[in-house]
């Protein structure tokens, strides 16, 4: 059984579909039960797996994770991992952002995820293989004037995953993975006419499934973003500050 947090649409839905098609039971978490229930019905009908869904808004402070933890406990040794294709961007995430929203952006994109991972690791069976997969964004390659809070939260999450990998370095049964996502063909990028090709959520989901027990720190998807990331990081500040993106 896998837990997927943020499974109602886009990358999360594609991952849920891929894992269900391979015969895995799922526990789907998202903030809108209507959508998650529809995904759960679809996967149960098509693949005959057990899919449960739970409404949980990661933006809420001090979340009660008891239902997720109960599902993990019920699954026992069948619990194989947890994936976090969750995230949220907001409009006007720049200097004009409402101060009260900074907190919720950090919670959805980082804080709640870190809290749930901590709780899961406390309860997971030590002798079972367990995968913890995070999803970040190319927005965190380098700070810029747009999506300021979002990219800061995703950068923090990426840092946390690296720390997590370091903390679990001696445990061969735990696989910590982090994907840095470029433009994906989901609603997040739908309205933007970007010049670079958008990644397919379905292809990403296949890759995530195939590599679920691989050992790597972080990986870009689509892969060509590695080159772009290197170039952006190497740009001197005097040039970088002039870029409009």
């Amino acid at each position: 059984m896998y837990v997927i947090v943020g499974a109602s649409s886009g990358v999360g839905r594609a991952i849920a579909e891929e894992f269900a098609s391979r015969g895995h039971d799922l526990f789907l978490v998202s903030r809108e039960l209507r959508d998650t229930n529809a995904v759960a019905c679809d996967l149960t009908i098509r693949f005959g797996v057990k899919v449960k869904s739970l409404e949980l808004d990661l933006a809420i402070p001090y979340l009660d994770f008891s239902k997720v933890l109960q599902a993990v406990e019920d699954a026992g040794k069948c619990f194989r991992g947890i994936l976090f294709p969750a995230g949220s961007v907001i409009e006007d995430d720049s200097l004009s952002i409402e101060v009260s929203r900074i907190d919720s952006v950090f919670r959805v994109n980082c804080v709640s995820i870190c809290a749930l991972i901590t709780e899961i690791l406390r309860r997971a069976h030590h002798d079972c293989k367990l995968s913890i997969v995070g999803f970040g964004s190319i927005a965190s390659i380098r700070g810029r004037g747009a999506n300021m809070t979002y990219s800061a939260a995703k950068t923090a999450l990426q840092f946390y995953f690296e720390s997590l990998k370091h903390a679990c370095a001696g445990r061969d049964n735990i696989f910590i993975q982090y994907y840095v996502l470029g433009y994906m063909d989901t609603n997040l990028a739908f309205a933007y006419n970007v010049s670079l090709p958008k990644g397919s959520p379905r292809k990403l989901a296949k890759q995530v499934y195939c590599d679920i027990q691989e050992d790597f720190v972080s990986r870009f998807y689509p892969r060509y973003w590695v080159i772009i990331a290197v170039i952006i990081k190497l740009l001197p500040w005097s040039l970088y500050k002039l870029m409009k993106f």
Partner: protein
Amino acid sequence: MSENLVKKSTFVSFDGAIKMSSYHQRPDRYRHLEINYGKQLRIARGGGYSFSAASFGENVLVQELTNFDRFLDFDETLKVIKVEAGMPLGKMLDWIMERGLYFPVLPGYPNITVGGCVAVDAHGKNPWKDGTFSEWVIEINLFHPFHGYMSLSREEHSDEFELTCGGFGTTGIIVDVTLQLVDLPSNALEVRKIPVRSLDEAMRKLSENADDSDYIYSWHGGSQNLKNFGAGVIFIGKWLQDGNTNVDSRLRRKVMTAQSRTNLPISFWNRFTVGFANRLFTELCTVNSREIMGVCRATFPFAYGAPYHSLFGRRGFSEIQVLIDLSTADIFIQKLCHLLEKHNPPLLMVSMKAFRGEQRSLSMAGEGYLVALNFYRNDKLPEFLELVDQLILETNAQPNLSKDSRCPYGVASRTLPHYSHFQTRLHQFDPYRLYRSELTERLGI
């Protein structure tokens, strides 16, 4: 448009005649359907396979439902399935066939969606026997900003149910649909190809065989040699009786879209190629007069055969499909032949089916023959189509609005039996007329 889920996109009708830039949203959550866009005009879009511009329009927000493609419920005992409106027919067919089930009314492309079929009240390979799509619809879940979610069926909100089936998306967004399935008799059909010498003979044969065929239509080459005009082939298919046979019944997934159909910059069709292709096709049918076809190939011929529609190139094609009454069929065919002889239009082929439908919306209704005329475009064609419009009015034939992207208001309003009633009821249901497209604007709906 303040919502950042919306962009500007260019849409083209499947026949290539109408191209427009419009607002475009691709909802993937229920709340996206419910976003308050005020009185912004909008229309739902499925696969975009309507030959006419039924799913986009000038300054209309297009709500593309391709992410709403989930199975929501399935009752194996009652053979009932509930799917979201963006469910492609091919995806549904693939899944139900694995369970020994089938859906009898399926148009020619597998990526046409269930919601689209409800909206145009599509027909399949034998509408005389199976009726139209809406006859197999048990329930529709409709969303309209001023009415919220409404469950429509023949028992509950029956008036809105009638308006929605064949209403071209004017009543709101079809969110999900519950369909009645039937047992799948086998994985293949036996298709016989019977030569006919004229359209009259084809009509007689269609009448004789429509009751007990599972698949029946005629094809006639658009030969410019009028001596032979009407010569063609009737395809009569029946489910293979002796169980499953060893044919490929898998679905081919990569099929063209309205956009990719226009990839060829010029049309392949001209007087010479039409004549040659028609002769070749007739020969092939004669040589191979009995064929065992896998279900998917028989159901979605356009996904399997030659890339027929893409050969029309960027300029596109024009199709006129009309329902002619049994009593006026002879006169219609006679006058049509006369027009063709006199004006020599760029006709590629004619196809006929026996038809029976009971709609009370913008769809064709009644009993008769469906006659489809496929043209490649040239400069004289619009003038000729106006003469066909006159013929439609004279013989009281009914146009299929989803096939003809230029059908004028005067023809639709005077020939479709429920046009006025539909218009009145629709305005009562939605006085603001939020859901519009190029088609509804052209037809004064």
